């Protein structure tokens, strides 16, 4: 009877040890997984930041290019190259357009 009880206790302790070890293992593996995940996410953040910076730079460069291309000095130069001439005579039209009645 006593032996039976002893065996049952040993078995319980073993189970407990088994549970604890398993738990520790699970925790260790979880930590490993989380660490891995964090490292990956850190890398992703870095890449995203780089991408943001690149896009911001590109955006600024495009704005700058647009400004240069749409400046009056550039338009004037292009107009001249395109054969446009400066106005020498301006015809002013009155608000009421004169109409011949007959």
């Amino acid at each position, binding site marked *: 009877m006593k032996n039976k009880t002893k065996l049952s206790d040993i078995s319980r302790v073993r189970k407990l040890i088994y549970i604890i070890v398993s738990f520790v293992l699970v925790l260790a593996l979880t930590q490993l997984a989380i660490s891995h995940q*964090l490292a990956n996410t850190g890398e992703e953040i870095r890449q995203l930041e780089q991408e943001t910076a690149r896009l911001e730079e590109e955006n600024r460069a495009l704005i700058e290019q647009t400004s240069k291309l749409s400046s009056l000095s550039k338009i004037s130069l292009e107009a001249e190259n395109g054969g446009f001439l400066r106005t020498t005579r301006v015809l002013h039209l009155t608000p009421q357009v004169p109409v011949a009645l007959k």
Partner: protein
Amino acid sequence: MFYWQILNSPELSAAAEGQHWVSFEIPARRGKILARDGFPLVTNEEAFLAFASLPDLKDKPEEIAAQIAPFLVSKKELLLETEQMLEARLKRQDLVWVPLKHRLSRETKKILENLQIEGLGFEEEPKRSYPEGSGAAHLLGFVGSDINGRDKGYFGLEGYYELELKGRSGVLRREKDASGKPILVGEVKGEGGKDGRSLVTTIDRTVQFIIEEELRRSLKRYGAASGLVVVAEPGTGAILGTVSLPGYDPARYFAFDKEFYPNPVVASSYEPGSTFKVLVMAAALNEGVVEPETRCDQCSGPRRIADYTIRTWNDEYHPQLTMVEVIQKSDNIGMIFVAEKLGIEKMVAYLKKFGLGQPAGIDLEDETSPPLRPANEWGLIDLATAAFGQGVAITPIQMVKAVGAIANQGRLMKPYVVQKVVYDQEVIGVQPQFERQVINPATARLMTEIMVNAVENGEAKWAKPKGFRIAGKTGTAQIPVAGHYDEEKTIASFIGFAPADEPKFIMLVTLREPTSSPWGSETAAPLWFDIAKELFTYYGIQPG
């Protein structure tokens, strides 16, 4: 343990700090300067600073210098000099970080990166860019360096609004892992930086473009040494455009002599000559000492005052001129008659009321103000010469401001260039500032009519565009040189506003030492009218 935790603690803490924290400087971007339609007059162009981290260099300094120097010089002659400079910097023993080249373009940066030189790094370092060119350089100013090598604005708007434009750099500190990557759940500390505020100016870039083009053409046409044009809104004092030539390129300011930097519109003074007569006449009319039809009973010949004999510009004399004709013929003797009626005390008081002797108050850095002598220091000869604009000094912006009061029903407005200071959603507006009523509205209307008559029937009538009512006055001033006036050199000018009844703009044109003709009516006035014609079309102002 005692050694590590107590004695060596600061050093170890610092080492640990360096190992698990990474710091980034977040550079503040300098604010933009925008035209009134929001188009950038000054913006930031992408550029980079190339630097070397000396402890990280693997190659020999002379090898690195020889590798990179060809990409950092614009002329072959500078290659050896640049190579030596780089080598000297790379050999510095007292530094760990040395700058190699400022403001590199993206293309050059890529070339240098491809060389894969260990220890060579790059930092963003934007440079100023001028999409509309350098015509408004005097107005805008430029960005140079202060004694610590940091960007600093000088002259014009860059100098005046330095605090608003420059912003404040920030620092971001973040925990990193062993490989230097950021830790997601790590701590992030930051000292927030702030980009510079942008300025929305009152400058109309079409007006600016027109006056730049016309002045450039006219300097050649009239063989003038220099010239300037200022266009403003009389009702508000807002500056629509201003140009002074010769100028400089603000992106390459270092290639120009320092004497080009100050803006002549606010920093130079001149004797205005006959354009000044409108202020004296307006004062006399306002005081009631003369009427438009008052006749000058001393205009039949030259006047002798003290030891001086004063003549008209063409040595022609017209007895019994009315005040309207005195301005029309720009008669010096007639103006002495007016000034004597006004008297020294009132003359000086009115000149002060028109803003002489004090800065115009414009928001540009380099403004000066020639002193106006107190009334008790004036003699009769001073009164006489001041009546026709000699012996008194004024800046172009003071002249625009003063005559602007005549165009604006006698109300003197403070000139200004910036109408809004903008940062994200935050907008600080600048309102037009009324300073004082100089002359009453009736006198202003009367004076306007006298100026319209001067344009219609005066010396410059041949150049006037038909059908438009323009109020204006020509001026040809002698240039004082070492105690006397130069016999040949003049400053030709024209000031006026249009349309006379409801002015859309006031404009001053001055040409220094024109060689085709010394007279304002043959140089400055035609230029004024040429610009005005374009402005009429731009603003849709009809004749009649």
